[in-house]
């Protein structure tokens, strides 16, 4: 099975000792693993090659951070590079100054165009706009019915024909109708086609000519392999793209195709599909994809996130508190909030080397964390600062106030005490460590 990069790097971490400057030989060793990880994640081999070369250049001679091993440091650089390659966080669909905004969905067969068209329509409708869908896939059996069904579910009108008609003619007819009916968004669902199918590529060009879409979006399956580069390149060169939507991200594909596509087109990934239901379209987060491409055990992004969540001044303050043994429930709550702001607990735990493999089948109950927060929120400020105040009747009140059981409150108090103990142990040590998250289960 695919090992995660984190798991594999554990082996390297053992081999690589020492600090100081990153040595070429350290880098090469680590980059070999990075290369394999990227290839296993389906990043195109040419993209991998360029990528590894540029990382090598950036990494050589860099100072190794105090907190990291050389191997980790290389991966950190890789992670940063991937994020950079994948681009800024949000690249929304741009609306035309003069409505309607025309959006054309294109891509291979079965990539998710029809479903994604409906998902977009839903988002626009929720924003209070008046979208219209166009069933311009006249190729696949029952494609028109599929879009009509989805349109009905959303209560969004679908323009379609049962007659012999070209998709381009149908689309321009739809545009006219949209203007008449004051529709401000027109989403054209087209037939799936192979990028090498000349006849069908011409058909797309015709639709484009007739409707001048403001956004032409390539819908690409996140499970796509090495060919992603050729597919994206051809669609971009022949039709022209404004962006990409990556679908079926709810599976376990590592999604390296995203890197390939971005590398050859330079076009932003605007959304990702995370399920078959129509509300499952999310903003695309480069950093999350970077971690995913590199495998779950990405200790670096954990470290990085930990570093950014705890800025230095704050860390110092917390350190002082620990010295003074004044760590309160309020501090616990803040810490929890920070940990949760870094991503799902599961993905965070997955980043801890050695834990990744063991945790594969463990489900972590995020609700537990919500409960802990709720319990702390229901305490009075003085209770939060002095746990000795928490007698039976107060605990009962807190349980009622937070919608939990007294046993839950007891558990939170116990965890707090344990955490305090644990933090005390760090007191002598240097620097700040992550709290023992797993201890909260």
């Amino acid at each position, binding site marked *: 099975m695919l090992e995660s990069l984190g798991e594999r790097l554990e082996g390297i971490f053992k081999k690589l000792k020492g600090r100081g400057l990153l040595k070429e030989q350290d880098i090469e060793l680590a980059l070999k693993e990075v290369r394999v990880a990227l290839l296993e994640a389906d990043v195109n*081999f040419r993209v991998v090659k360029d990528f590894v070369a540029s990382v090598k250049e950036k990494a050589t001679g860099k100072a190794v951070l105090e907190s990291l091993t050389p191997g980790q440091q290389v991966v950190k650089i890789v992670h940063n590079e991937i994020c950079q390659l994948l681009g800024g966080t949000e690249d929304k669909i741009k609306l035309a100054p003069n409505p309607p905004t025309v959006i054309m969905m294109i891509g291979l067969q079965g990539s998710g165009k029809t479903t994604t068209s409906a998902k977009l329509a839903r988002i626009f409708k929720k924003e209070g706009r008046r979208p219209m869908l166009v069933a311009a896939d006249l190729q696949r059996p029952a494609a028109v019915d599929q879009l009509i069904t989805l349109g009905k*579910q959303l209560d969004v009108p679908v323009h379609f024909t049962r007659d012999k008609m070209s998709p381009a003619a149908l689309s321009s007819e739809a545009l006219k109708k949209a203007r008449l009916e004051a529709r401000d968004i027109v989403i054209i669902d087209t037939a799936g086609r192979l990028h090498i199918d000349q006849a069908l590529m011409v058909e797309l060009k015709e639709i484009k000519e007739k409707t001048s879409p403001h956004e032409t979006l390539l819908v690409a399956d996140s499970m796509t392999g090495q*060919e992603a580069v050729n597919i994206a390149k051809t669609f971009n060169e022949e039709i022209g793209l404004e962006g990409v939507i990556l679908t079926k991200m709810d599976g*376990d594909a590592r999604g390296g195709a995203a890197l390939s596509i971005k590398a050859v087109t330079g076009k932003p990934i605007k959304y990702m599909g995370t399920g078959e239901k129509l509300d499952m379209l999310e903003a695309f987060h480069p950093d999350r994809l970077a971690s995913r491409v590199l495998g779950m055990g990405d200790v670096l992004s954990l470290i990085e996130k930990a570093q950014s969540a705890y800025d230095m001044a704050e860390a110092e303050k917390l350190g002082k508190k620990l010295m003074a043994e004044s760590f309160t429930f309020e501090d616990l709550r803040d810490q929890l909030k920070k940990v949760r702001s870094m991503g799902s607990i599961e993905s965070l735990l997955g980043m801890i080397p050695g834990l990744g493999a063991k945790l594969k089948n463990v489900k972590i109950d995020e609700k537990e964390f919500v409960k802990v927060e709720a319990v702390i929120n229901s305490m009075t400020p003085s209770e939060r600062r002095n746990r000795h105040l928490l007698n039976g009747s107060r605990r009962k009140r807190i349980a009622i106030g937070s919608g939990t059981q007294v046993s839950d409150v007891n558990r939170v108090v116990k965890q707090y005490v344990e955490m305090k103990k644990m933090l005390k142990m760090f007191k002598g040590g240097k620097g700040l460590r992550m709290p023992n998250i797993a201890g909260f289960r």
Partner: protein
Amino acid sequence: MGLFDRLKKGLERTRASLMGGIDNIFSGGKVIDEESLEELEELLISSDIGVKTASGIIESLEQRKSDVKKAGSPREFLKSEMTDLLGRPEPLVLFGEKPFVILTVGVNGAGKTTTIGKLASRFTQEGRSVVLAAADTFRAAAIEQLEIWSQRSGAQLIKQQAGGDPAAVAFDAVEAAKKRGSDVVIIDTAGRLHTKAPLMEELKKVRRVIQKAMPDAPQETLLVVDATNGQNALRQAELFNQAIAVTGIALTKLDGTAKGGIVFTIKRELGIPIKLLGIGEAVEDLRDFDPKDFIDALFG
């Protein structure tokens, strides 16, 4: 056009790049050195064969020098190595008591329904009677899609309303086929990602319920894999196999530029035979998989 020629035509683009590449690497009696091996690795990886399998192939080229010599050239050696990886041809054959039940599964958009349509018309053209079960009750207009294929192929369609119980549709179809004395039942299921436990449970239920109507069924459980997919296809095969014991693979969309190299790894790691190839969207675009033809078409 003969069968092989059509396959070759379907695989032309695949062949052009893989074969042209191998010929270039080892042209003019060039030796097997680090550079040529690296090029070969890239070529293999670009077919989605995966790093591990590619390394294995390269290792044998590197180490079994006398076998390479015996084969005549690195190219011939690679050809026979890769053919061996795929094993013997194991076409989809009907056997046993009627009806022969084929359960079709796979991730979303892989080409299940289309493959079923093509298979159905192959069987009806052979003079067999076919029942199709519209057990994808989830995706919008999935039933209508299969209905069109049943008309194209002259197969009977068994359906219920959208949103119904897929297992019940499958059961009805097998019962109907038994009653009518039909030869084949092909069950279409909703696309599902292999990671979704409840949906995999649903498939197990479909199988259990079919077995109530016919204990030996399904005689064939066909996993449909999109050749455009990369390494994730191995996970698909692994998990679908775990859930419902896959007996064969249909590899679709080979008319594109994707090479579907992952099937080498699927065969190597899981032993699941590849049985069918999809090389287009029309009724006639279905081929039996034959390792030798496949490799010949790849290698020219």
